[in-house]
């Protein structure tokens, strides 16, 4: 399957700080991917690099085989982007923003945008700055969708929305995905709401990609193992231990399995996606993962360090 987004050792440095380092990533077309990581992990940097707002310090990024910085004329029409906090020209009326979309995008679907505004009860003659946060987010989404992009990138689209607006926003997004089959990459510092919407997961932390892969696959291969207190070395020789905690009598591990589990002394449990994400994020904070080389790129999951 072709990739909507491909990065290769993509790195971005601001002054002396690396915002993103050696990020290698393939996002297959047709996926709805969640880009998850704590604040300051490099999510915004990755998205901005992907839409050509930033130029890489090193490495490369391609959308549908096009470089967003050197081939913006070809790449930009295929990209939809909604930046964090959905910046809009606050003094423009809603219909003026739609006109802006129409004037600046040859393939702009004006009817679609107007229909969305109508369905959401957003008055066309209201100034964008007078709309509620949720309405502004919907307007920004409508503008990006009416561009008819092949890849839609959303930077923390849910952060400023209340739970109701969040649900509505995601519903609108999913409708669009089912209608057009576009690829979506949306960033968030929490996984909660995204679980139902996304089928692909990318975990980014401390400017590195920790994990990227199919969501179900990730859920299937990650297990919580509970057993009598013991060292995790035996398990770690076959599987990848993400997190280990010990009490006096018991050891609890969160592992990515690289094959079947044989040792009957362990009790294997399903883990929620949220726990997996948290494990990766806290693991990053403590130590670097020791992965058997053979385990890399197994199960369609890429592990990058």
């Amino acid at each position, binding site marked *: 399957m072709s990739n909507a987004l491909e990065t290769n050792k993509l790195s971005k440095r601001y002054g002396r700080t690396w915002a993103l380092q050696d990020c290698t990533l393939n996002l297959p077309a047709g996926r709805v991917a969640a880009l998850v990581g704590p604040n300051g992990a490099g999510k915004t940097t990755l998205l901005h690099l992907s839409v050509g*707002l930033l130029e890489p310090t090193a490495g490369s990024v391609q959308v549908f085989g096009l470089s967003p910085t050197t081939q913006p004329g070809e790449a930009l029409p295929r990209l939809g982007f909604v930046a964090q*906090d959905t*910046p809009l020209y606050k003094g423009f009326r809603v219909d003026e923003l739609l006109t*802006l979309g129409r004037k*600046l*995008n040859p393939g702009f679907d004006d009817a679609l945008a107007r229909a969305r505004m109508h369905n959401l009860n957003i008055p066309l003659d209201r100034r964008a700055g007078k709309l509620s946060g949720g309405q502004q987010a919907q307007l920004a989404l409508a503008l990006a969708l009416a561009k008819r992009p092949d890849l839609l990138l959303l930077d923390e689209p849910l952060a400023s929305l209340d739970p109701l607006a969040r649900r509505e926003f995601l519903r609108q997004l999913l409708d669009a995905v089912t209608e057009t089959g576009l690829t979506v990459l949306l960033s968030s510092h929490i996984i909660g709401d995204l679980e139902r919407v996304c089928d692909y997961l990318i975990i980014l932390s401390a400017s590195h990609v920790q994990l990227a892969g199919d969501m179900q696959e990730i859920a299937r291969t990650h297990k919580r193992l509970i057993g009598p207190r013991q060292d995790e070395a035996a398990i770690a020789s076959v599987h990848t231990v993400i997190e280990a905690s010990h009490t006096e009598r018991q050891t609890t591990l969160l592992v990515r399995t690289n094959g079947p589990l044989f040792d009957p002394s362990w009790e294997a449990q399903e883990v929620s996606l949220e726990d997996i994400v948290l494990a990766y994020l806290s693991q990053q904070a403590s130590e670097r993962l020791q992965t058997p080389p053979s385990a890399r790129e197994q199960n369609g999951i890429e592990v990058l360090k």
Partner: protein
Amino acid sequence: MTWLVWRQHRAEGLILLVVLAVISVFLLITGLEMANSFQQLRLSNCLNLVSRDSPCQGRMQVFDNQYSFLLGGTTLLLPLPLLLGALVGAPLVAREVEQRTHLLIWTQSITRMRWLTVKLALLLGVVLLVSGALLALLYWWQSPSAQIHGSFISRIYDTSGPVWVASALLALALGIFAGALTRRTASAIFLTIALFVAIRVPVEVLWRPNFETPVTITWPIDQQEPPALSNQAWRFASGYIDAQGNRSSDLREGCTGEMTTTQCLQANGVQANYISYQPGDRFWTFQWIETGIYMGFSVLALFAAVWLVRRRLN
């Protein structure tokens, strides 16, 4: 894109248009009155007379007394280009970044460079047209005074030739550059003013008098009156030349009452009187040289702005 430029700049455009309309009406009314006085005082007969006791002198004085306030008011026009630079130029990139709308506008199908070049082309084009139109009016308005006093007086020189247009374009270009550099509208406005003054003042004060080598004429010390010079000549230095050819504007020693002027000058070692000036017919050459200088700075500023937007932002 044209629509967007119109939509984003219509407020500033309206302000500038109102300012210009008020100025134009004012110039029309007062200009007609001045042209009328000029004719009634028969000042056109006076233009080639330079003798001090000519009856023309009195009539010129009448004209000057009547309109000096008005003519001096032209100085108020000089900050107009700065207003343009601060109002339109400085926020062009800075406000987008401040309000983060650059993230919206640079991710539409149109490329960032096209966004910038269309904006620049349209705004510079409009400024060129509008300042050109105002120039035509100013040129007509200043002409009575220019005929009497010469076009080299800075209040006339700055507002009745292509330097006026170039100065508007320079302010706009510097504003755009400052905005792209600082990404803050407020700091960009200050930087625009600073840069504009830093370029204009030295050019006007230090460079302009020397665009071409000034003409110097000398006359003997026993001759009180200098040779006749046209009204149009720009006199900027006069004084005494000693035997070594050194020029000075003051005498080393004062003169006592018993001495005649000639004796006094001789006592000071003065060999001749001199006066340095730029002939009036160099006006347009000077205008185009200065226009070239400002255009050069404008092009530099615009290239820097394009580079900043392309490479440095974010």
